[in-house]
């Protein structure tokens, strides 16, 4: 039974396999970068046991680059995904709706791909603005959907391989079989899609790629906004610490030779400087100049064994990430500091006054603020 409206007719001439292939491969590349950088972020935040001690603390800019790419490739998918879906939209109404078991499975896999991809890109974008209107927890769902999208994309590529190959280049047989007069219009459409990717990238990427910060019009963060010239995620008020009195502060180091240090004693230890970025999982990042005590010096003071893991405990009373742990690669890196100063000034409360952790190649949420205790483990 066919009504007069269904299936609809499409007069547009670019709903073809060559256009779909051209946009699809860029979207595939964006998804690949997004998935791999997302995996890196996941491993750094939730290290599997077998990898735990061996995560590298270098390069110092590693996480800044991968997480910047993660959010930039996700934002690039915002124009690419709808453009790709536009090229194949008429196939939604192909008739008969189901021709065979194979056809039914193929349509089902495409439905999964579309649903997961749209929701994955949308939730990721909204997370950068810290907006969570959905009823489910963001992190586990975003992570699970990432695998679902990656898998359905691979399956889709395998199913469509002959068509992709036939339309890969301008000289491919499938492309040559398409009407030649559509060529200029197709190139104009592809140029517009490229321009859209460029526009959304330029207006947002400055939140991590600071040379472009002047063009940062639509990003949820700006490198110049924040105390000490650095953006903040959790404030002292939100963490329930307020301003910690310097004369009452003690850093407790738990280890074979346990000790407690006052703020003046910490200032009396050799001070080191490090140029390290805060790189947030939400995509923004900025490099800063830190001054403080090397964690490795404190570990030696406490008589920690060489391969010991270290637990860093915050004085904060509210919020996740009160405790972070690091393997010996991080703990013994000479750039890993318990910082007392930031960009030439004393830390502000929102940046963790009086003492915070700063380590290279590490997500911002693990750079524990308001540090009260270092524990040498095993």
């Amino acid at each position: 039974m066919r009504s007069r409206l269904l299936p609809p007719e499409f007069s547009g001439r670019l709903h073809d396999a060559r256009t779909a292939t051209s946009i699809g491969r860029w979207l595939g590349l964006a998804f690949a970068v997004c998935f791999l950088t997302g995996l890196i972020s996941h491993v750094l935040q939730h290290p599997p046991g077998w990898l735990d001690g061996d995560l590298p603390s270098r390069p110092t800019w590693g996480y800044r680059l991968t997480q910047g790419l993660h959010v930039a490739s996700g934002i690039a998918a915002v124009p690419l995904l709808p453009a790709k879906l536009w090229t194949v939209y008429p196939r939604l109404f192909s008739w008969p709706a189901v021709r065979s078991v194979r056809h039914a499975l193929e349509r089902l896999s495409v439905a999964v791909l579309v649903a997961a991809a749209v929701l994955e890109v949308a939730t990721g974008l909204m997370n950068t603005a810290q907006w969570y209107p959905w009823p489910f927890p963001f992190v586990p769902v975003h992570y699970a959907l990432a695998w679902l999208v990656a898998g359905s994309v691979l399956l889709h590529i395998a199913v469509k391989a002959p068509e992709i190959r036939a339309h890969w280049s301008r000289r491919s047989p499938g492309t040559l079989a398409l009407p030649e007069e559509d060529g200029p219009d197709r190139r104009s459409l592809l140029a517009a899609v490229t321009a859209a990717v460029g526009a959304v990238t330029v207006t947002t990427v400055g939140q991590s790629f600071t040379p472009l910060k002047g063009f940062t019009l639509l990003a949820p963060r700006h490198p110049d906004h924040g105390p000490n010239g650095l953006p903040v995620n959790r404030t002292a008020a939100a963490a329930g610490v307020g301003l910690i009195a310097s004369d009452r502060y003690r850093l407790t180091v738990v280890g074979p030779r346990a000790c407690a240090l006052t703020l003046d004693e910490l200032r009396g230890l050799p001070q080191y400087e490090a140029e390290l970025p805060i790189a947030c999982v939400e995509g923004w990042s900025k490099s800063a100049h830190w001054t403080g005590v090397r964690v490795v010096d404190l570990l030696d003071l406490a008589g920690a064994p060489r391969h010991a893991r270290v637990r860093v405990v915050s004085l904060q009373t509210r919020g996740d990430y009160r405790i972070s742990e690091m393997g010996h690669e991080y703990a013994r890196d000479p750039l890993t500091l318990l910082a007392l100063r930031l960009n030439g000034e004393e830390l502000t409360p929102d940046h963790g006054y009086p003492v915070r952790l700063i380590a290279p190649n590490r997500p911002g949420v693990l750079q524990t603020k308001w540090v009260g205790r270092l524990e040498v483990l095993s």
Partner: protein
Amino acid sequence: MRTGVTRWLTGAAGLVLAGVGAYRLLGVDDLTGVLIWLGGAVVLHDVLIAPLVLLIGSVLVRGGVRGPVRGALLVGGALTAVALPVLLRPGKPANPSVLPLDYPRNWLVTLVAVAVVSALVPVVRRIGRSRRR
């Protein structure tokens, strides 16, 4: 023959990865909520956004300037989509360094820039063509 094997391996790898995703999804809190939002995403796109885009395209993208007009709509639409969260997020941000910019103003600035560039493209092209003659 080799390409056939690669194709099957790619498909199998896809099934494994998607299986991992589905398995992880079964373990999250509020699976029903996730499924509703997944279905909602498809419905929102297939029933609302895509027909709307096709309608706008069939009305506005025609004639000799179809390229620049389509380009302007596409780039402006993409910028708007990316701006939606920062424009519409309800409630006060967690601290002054979150969403620190004047987003409605910035969004309009980008749209004006898109309109100006798109209007200039045909002019520049015509000048280029007449010079070549």
